[in-house]
């Protein structure tokens, strides 16, 4: 590859977290690039930029750029998240926690959840999340980072962001490493007959051209949408198509465990200052949703659950809500954007933009988002609620990958392997068992361990957690200690 083939200029359009993280990562990890961020007006409907809760991928993504915990978490006022508590999803069953941690550990040669299934068949047993150290930590409102030689050694944690401060941090970082910020609004996008973007005209008449265009403008997809509007629709499996968000400055500090409560036509959550409600517009009016939220919301956000099957075409790549729209359940929005940025950097094209490169990127990306869709859809498909919206989803055949997963799990608790899976088997088992999908039969491998041995092993696990728990700080205490450390 000669230098002449190398791409030189990347234009990232957008001004939210997605755009700034993309620009910062491109410039930091491929320093030979000129990266311009075309700062279009913030998109109020870009969930990747607007949802405060994140999955555990964000701290690692920041670390790859050289942004440590102090700058990327503590100084931006982010809270730690160990998981999500689901309330009211399966009527008649207790709430459950999906924590970013293991649940129990294998006994003999069988996975823990298979033992738990036998134990439930044999009689009363502690809830599944009682065996997850981080779930117990979270239920107690406590937090520690992974700490070797304690039960709290293997978990991950997400964040609850102070969105404005996080954006200010990454923007400062990006410009510091050399990203050029260019305010402007897109008036027109020129596309040639091959589907390549040839230039962008701004409302003030300026034009800007680049070798590669990254569209982080949110659902409007101002750049990528000029090439085509292919869309894969997921509405039948993900019924919520409307979101209300409200800021409650008097709200409590970000909780270490985010509560997600189902209602007749969707679900609502609270993560400290940010509150939200997701609902199906056909089953709940905006006004009724606002009343349920109990705070004054911003304008309703319409979402179109689904994805572009080809986020990358020609020399233009859609990232974040410009590529995929899903409700914030399980907090995947920013995660999918970061994963796409990582993938783009690993697959950075040259000027020829060979079709196979885009095809390979799209294959991986589609596999990833479809499995996220399956994971979210599993929450609806396995829910037990009588209202029409819930019943309609329960009556809809799931997408093939999810159908296979559910059939396998329902039979014997098997979780089949899929490429590009975001959520671990522990996560899948936590939500399926939490929602009450109990496998029909006990896996033969479990029978190698006598039931009383399993019971003893299970008791040891819960005892170890209970013994260690009092020695951990409350979440607020931990955060305060970090702040104090920085102030010194």
């Amino acid at each position, binding site marked *: *590859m000669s*230098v002449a*083939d*190398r*791409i030189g200029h990347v234009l990232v359009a957008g001004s939210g977290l997605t755009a700034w993280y993309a620009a910062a990562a491109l410039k930091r*990890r*491929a*320093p*030979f690039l000129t990266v311009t961020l075309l700062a279009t007006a913030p998109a109020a409907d870009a969930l990747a930029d607007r949802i405060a809760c994140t999955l555990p991928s964000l701290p690692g993504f920041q670390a790859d750029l050289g942004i440590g915990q102090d700058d990327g978490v503590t100084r931006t006022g982010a809270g730690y998240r160990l998981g999500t508590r689901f309330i009211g999803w399966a009527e008649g069953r207790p709430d459950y926690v999906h924590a970013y941690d293991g649940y129990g550990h294998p006994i003999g*040669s069988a996975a823990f959840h298979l033992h738990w299934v*036998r134990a439930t*068949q044999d009689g009363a047993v502690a809830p599944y999340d009682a065996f997850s150290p981080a779930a117990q930590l979270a239920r107690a409102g406590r937090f520690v980072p992974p700490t070797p030689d304690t039960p709290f050694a293997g978990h991950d944690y997400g964040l609850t962001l102070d969105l404005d401060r996080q954006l200010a941090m990454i923007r400062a970082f990006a410009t510091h490493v050399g990203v050029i910020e260019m305010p402007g609004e897109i008036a027109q996008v020129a596309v040639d007959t091959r589907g390549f973007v040839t230039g962008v005209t701004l409302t003030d008449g300026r034009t800007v051209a680049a070798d590669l265009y990254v569209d982080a403008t949110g659902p409007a997809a101002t750049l990528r949408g000029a090439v085509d509007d292919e869309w894969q629709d997921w509405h039948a499996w993900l019924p919520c198509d409307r979101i209300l968000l409200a800021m409650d400055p008097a709200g409590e500090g970000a909780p270490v465990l985010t509560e997600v409560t189902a209602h007749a036509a969707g679900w609502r959550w609270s993560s400290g200052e940010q509150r939200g409600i997701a609902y199906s517009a056909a089953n709940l009016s905006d006004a009724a949703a606002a009343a349920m939220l109990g705070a004054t919301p911003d304008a309703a956000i319409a979402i179109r659950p689904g994805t572009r099957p080809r986020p990358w075409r020609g020399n233009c790549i859609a990232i974040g809500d410009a590529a995929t729209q899903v409700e914030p359940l399980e907090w995947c929005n920013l995660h999918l954007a970061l994963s796409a940025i990582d993938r783009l950097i*690993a*697959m*950075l*094209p*040259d000027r*020829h933009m*060979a079709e*196979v*490169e885009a*095809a*390979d990127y799209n294959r*991986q990306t589609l596999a990833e988002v479809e499995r996220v869709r399956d994971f979210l859809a599993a929450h609806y498909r396995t829910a037990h609620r009588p209202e029409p919206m819930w019943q309609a989803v329960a009556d809809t055949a799931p997408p093939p990958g999810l159908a*296979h997963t559910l*059939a*396998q799990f*329902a*039979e*014997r608790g*098997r979780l*089949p*392997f899929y*490429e590009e899976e975001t959520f671990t088997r522990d996560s899948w088992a936590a939500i399926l068992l939490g929602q009450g999908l*109990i496998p*029909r*039969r*006990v896996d*033969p*491998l479990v*029978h*190698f361990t006598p039931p009383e041995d399993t019971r003893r092993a299970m008791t040891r696990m819960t005892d170890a957690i209970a013994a260690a728990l009092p020695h951990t700080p409350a979440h607020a205490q931990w955060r305060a200690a970090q702040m104090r450390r920085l102030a010194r």
Partner: protein
Amino acid sequence: MAKVTNDKVRVVIVGGGTAGWMAGAAFTRLLSGQCSVRLIESDAIGVVGVGEATLPHIRAFNERLGIAEADFMARTAATFKLGIEFRDWGRVGDSYIHPFGTFGRGAGAIDFHHYWARLLREGHDLPPLDDVSYACKLARDARFDHPDQKRGGLPSTFGYAYQFDALLFAPYLRQLAEEAGAVRTEGMVVDVERDGESGLIRAVVLDSGERVEGDLFIDCSGFRSLLLGQTLEEPFEDWSRWLPTDRAVAMPCRTETSVTPYTSAIAMPAGWRWRIPLQHRTGNGYVYASDFISDADAARVLEEAVEGAPLAAPRQLRFKAGRRRRSWVGNCVALGLASGFLEPLESTSIYLVQQAITALIELFPTREMAASDRDEFNRIIDLEYDRIRDFLILHYHATTRDDSPFWNYVRTMPIPDSLAEKMELWRKRARVVKYREGVFLDASWIAVYLGQGIMPEGWDPRADTAATPDLLRAVGDLRAEIAADVGTRPGHRAFLERYCPMVAA
């Protein structure tokens, strides 16, 4: 909720040999209490047993069964295997090793081969690729030592497998299986009884007249595919348009050269020839396409090519590349050759048996077969076969050889789209299509691409940021470091003699 039945599943394995006894040993050792195992085999039916070279995965299988390495190696006359040498594939005169290990140090944000591709394109005088892979260098120098996982670094950047005598491996496993409760019955299956309604197999009838009932039937009958193919008539998916070799002639000989810690695959005018050194002899065979050479000529060519005195007469095998559409049908699961065949070019036969057994243990049924278990099993097996298939086709297709009708055919034949895309991505950008699952991962593909002369035109642009002199110095340092460390390791033969000298049969 269904209560667990405590009834043991009655497993009937039809056919001994490697597949049959691997299954017998695994089920009795890993599922004891869950099933009873009955294995029917006939001394009158020969064992194919060409699968003498294995992949590193076999070690996990042995470990699970509690097999001690040195004991197993001594009793199967085994040698170590660090990879496969391919001779004359891309061009006559070429030789490269597909190592069970990495190129470079196996660390860093950008894979080694991107820098290599750049340096090649810039026209620098580079050392042979084998010199920058610890596994390749160890293999070329005919040395061996276990990977040093404790200290890490270069001596940890490889894995290994075994080359063993398949005719000794099956009896070794048989002993394990019988100790763990497997019951062997001498006999030939002459009839298969099926349930009129469900079509499930109820029993097999032996030539002695004995009727053996079972819940789960494992077809290890080899190419005959007695249960899955003949009885259940599961269709065969034919892949011979991409993998046209359909016969092999095998002949062991005395080892006259080196007991190499690798298998050799030497391209021939109508196929290729294997060389597998064991402790006491060397296995040889010519895998060929009968459309391009006669059986008599193939046998003659083999006899001329082997390095030492023959230890047996040439023996012929016939096969067809492809697989049964499903491996698990009703209550019958086919393992090994009974389920499909891929030529031994990358030593995948035993691996495929092992993966099927592992999946079957994970999906082990109750006496009532669940359709969901079958579907998942078949999904896993399909994935394995499909990915190996593309990798094998690559070896034939990525060539400039035009010296025989056979090579002209494979060089110009249409290939599966899935492979064409992989090759184009490599050519354009030095990228290997990434999967998490599947047997051959990045280093394998890179070895074959580079070894067979498919040079990338582009690479990761981040590999351009380093200065050329720095890169060349790094390559020189790496090469020197590998050579120095490999030089301290024992010779392969000496290692074997100390560690696991073969037990006289």
